[in-house]
């Protein structure tokens, strides 16, 4: 479903070029759940962005759903994202001027689905926000906002779901509930899940664990072994 080889990413900084990723090779099969852990600033989000086709590597190749995204232009990558990719972000990334329902409808509308409203209502109902359809993000709690984001991520039936610290902004209890929802939906839909987190509890729920250390991926320590 998702693979990359010899992936490198270098960025220019005031102190000179900084090599964030130093040749990463990886393969994730359809339906797998993978947690990528690592210290702050280790490049987890950079890797996630590259795998999801939001950015291009300095070198190396990436395939998503059997298509090489490193050979595509931005529009082709956008099409691929629309058909195959869902996102859940640490900071929710909901549009403030849209209601919960409208936020979930957005990817469906962008892909031209005529049943956008019904589908969005179904997913919001599924995450327990049926009574909150017309609320704006600033009228919702952090946990509720993240549930809207999860509903939006699954609404387009993606093959791969990328989640970047999905519980990072939430308290433990709310975080736990969000994790439950995420994995329940993942099971129901058979989506491949790639999670970036520094939370042990969350990483443990995934089948595989990988740790990003000094720009390279290595299997997570045995006590953090895949569940």
């Amino acid at each position: 479903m998702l693979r990359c080889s010899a992936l490198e990413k270098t960025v220019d900084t005031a102190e000179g070029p900084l090599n964030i990723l130093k040749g990463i090779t990886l393969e994730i099969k359809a339906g797998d759940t993978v947690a990528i852990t690592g210290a702050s600033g280790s490049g987890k989000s950079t890797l996630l962005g590259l795998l999801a086709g939001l950015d291009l590597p300095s070198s190396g190749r990436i395939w998503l759903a059997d298509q090489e995204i490193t050979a595509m232009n931005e529009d082709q990558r956008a099409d691929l994202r629309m058909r195959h990719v869902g996102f859940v972000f640490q900071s929710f990334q909901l549009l403030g001027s849209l209601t919960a329902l409208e936020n979930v409808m957005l990817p469906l509308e962008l892909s031209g689905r005529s049943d956008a409203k019904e589908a969005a209502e179904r997913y919001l109902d599924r995450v327990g926000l049926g009574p909150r359809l017309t609320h704006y993000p600033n009228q919702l709690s952090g946990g509720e906002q993240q549930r809207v984001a999860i509903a939006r991520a699954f609404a387009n039936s993606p093959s791969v779901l990328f989640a970047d610290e999905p519980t990072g902004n939430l308290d433990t209890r709310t975080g736990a509930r969000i994790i439950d929802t995420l994995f329940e939906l993942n099971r129901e839909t058979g989506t491949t899940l790639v999670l970036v987190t520094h939370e042990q509890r969350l990483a443990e729920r995934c089948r595989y664990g990988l740790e990003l250390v000094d720009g390279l991926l290595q299997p997570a320590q045995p006590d953090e072994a895949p569940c």
Partner: protein
Amino acid sequence: MLSLRLLARDWAAGELRLLTTALALAVAIVVGISAFTEQLKSALVSESNRFIAADRVLMAPNPAPEDWLQGAEAYGLRRGETARFASMLVAGDRMQLTGVKAVSPSYPLRGRLEISDTAGGPSRTVDHGPATGEIWLEARMLPLLSVNVGDRVEIGESRLRVGAILVKEPDRGDAFFSIAPHALMALADLPATRIIQPGSRVRYNYLFAGPEKGLAAYHDWLKKRLTPDYRWLNLRDTQPRVASALDRADRFLLLASTLGVALAGIAIAISARRYSERHYDAMAVMKCLGGREGRLFGLYLQQLLFIGLLGFALGAALGWAVQWGLSILLESYVGDRLPVPGWRPLAMGGLTAAVCLAAFALPPLLALRTIPPLRVFRRDLGNERRRAWPAIAVGLVSLTLLMWYHSRNLQLTLSLVLGACVTLAAGGFLVLQLLRWTRRRTANAGGALRLAMASLQRHPLRNALQVVMFALAIMLLLILIFVRTSLLKDWQRQLPPGTPNHFLVNILPEQIADVRAWLGEQRIAETDFYPMVRGRLTEINGTSIEERMKREQRHNEVQDRALNLTWSGDLPADNSIRDGSWWKAGTQTSPPEVSVETHLAGELDIRLGDRLTFQIGPETLESRVTSLRKVDWDNMRPNFYMIFPPTVLDEYAHTFITSLYLPPERKTVLNAFVQRFPTITVVEMDAIIAQVRGVVRQVTQAIELVLWLIIGCALLVLLAGVQASIDVRIGENALLRALGAQRRLITGSLWLEFSTIGLAAGVIAAFAAELAVWYFQERVMEMSYAPHPWTWLLGPLLGAVLVGGTGYLSCRHIVRVPPMRLLQAT
């Protein structure tokens, strides 16, 4: 449609109101003002109703050939005819020298006559002159001839019935050098009177009315046939004061619309930029969700198009309402219904909307295209400083073109734009330096002041830009206020209360003492008595005027008519020497000196030292130009093109002229005067003065209304500017409150911060406005410039209060909403 749904959601969130309002105001100003200036032009035409009873008049000393007149019909013109002459009216043993006007049945082509049946009784309006066999007399003639309506009077060999009392006639203002009192009769009755004989002094006026194009084409056709005896008149020739008042109003309104569009353009640019910046995140998220760059940008373009249509519709409606209001003002004065303006103002509004959106709103939106989807992880992506120059250059060029298009004056536009650029760049630099300087000075200041200064210094470039933007808005507003004030002052100065409203002409030298004594008895103050000799300017430096003008392929009315020459030892009041020098008392030169009015000198290319030859009666007089003199033609005193030193014209036949002020209630005194001095001509200017005052009053109201529209635009710029910086301020101040800052401290610091920005903007604006107004008044409005000391108070005060107030009002919810909610929102 997704774009419409997104637009509706943004609209509901209030994101687009400012942008749409700014656009609507730009369109409203353009539509309203251009429709109104079109109507002003119609009013100018209908003004001629009152003064020449037609749109154009051909003045002739002899009857014009019939084929000339019939030619007019081919151009779709209506025509009429009047003949004016002086004649003795007789009733029983009473006789009265009367100025008679014989009129054709189609007279008047424009305007209406007002008549009554009894002196001082109720009057009614009619749109035709007397029927054949009738004569209409001015009220004061009835006691002079001892007749009433219905009685008969003799004129030449005819006896006509007094049909009505003539109260008002549209071309009465054209009564210069006509003899009062006045009577009106049918042209058809004229031959029977046998008054007109070869050599009789009669002035024939051929009246024409119709569409402007037809008039121009007919004039082109006729021009080739006219001999120098004929004069082709329009309102500008007959009523330069009214024409000049309307012209100036027109120019003022064009300036106002130019500045209004500039202000609205700035507001559009600021609010579009803010709109774009607030959509960076949305763009990144939508790209993340699989939206293609082109498609997403298309969504925003569609929104822009929709905003354009909405803004245009709102603006056109508002503009039409403004135009309607203004035209009601004008109609109440003009009396006739003004034609509904055509589609042109709407087209201009549409063009303005399109250019404003393309030039000011599109560049910030273009920035949205390049927002990378990775911004969802790194919010700093897409925030890096973009090269602003291309957008600024596009905006500036478009603004210049728009202003040029609206002002129709490239010189004015370039000077305004260049002046604004230079002053504002200098102003921006100064503000930056000032902020650096105050950084050290305010470090120890207390509370709100330190907070305000810290906030200003935290974003020096952004704040300097804001100061410059506000300065621009205040400057444009000040310019308009200055020009309006001096325009009104100039008008008031032209015709102050007590302006002479009657001329006494043809006073013989030996009558001066008697006239002076008589006026003294009646306690009527007169201006000086000026001698007057009629003479034609025939040669300049030995070359005949005709030859000289033919060489330059020009024509001047001086070629066609005699000038009034005068002499004076002192430079008359309201005259000023522009070149050369006034003569010293008692000096006599050969050839004698002459002082020439500057405008005429320019027309005929007369320079200092030139030799001028005059034909006075059968004799010629040669003179040398020793001074060029500017004359205030609006002062209603006797004014002259040519002035000689005393004694030069002594030997030529001369009469005197004077002017005096007569309040309306004392008008009947004229009867006694005319009886006492029957040979002296009384020229009544009071009707004209009243008309000019009327025009000025109505146009002043129009100007005030337009000024409010422009103030609205300037406030919009302030609001847009404040809102553009509000997001940052909300975050910072919410944090301060969370850290325990009291509401008063936050409110005080917001006031201080915005007032300081406004104060700085006001100082820059005052300086820039003073410069621009100096240029504008001297070069464009042809008015004299005087500095405005109060600007230096008004500018900064206006800036501090307006920007402070707008800033405070826009930000006050920061201190009302719990900080938690604000922090969540940012």
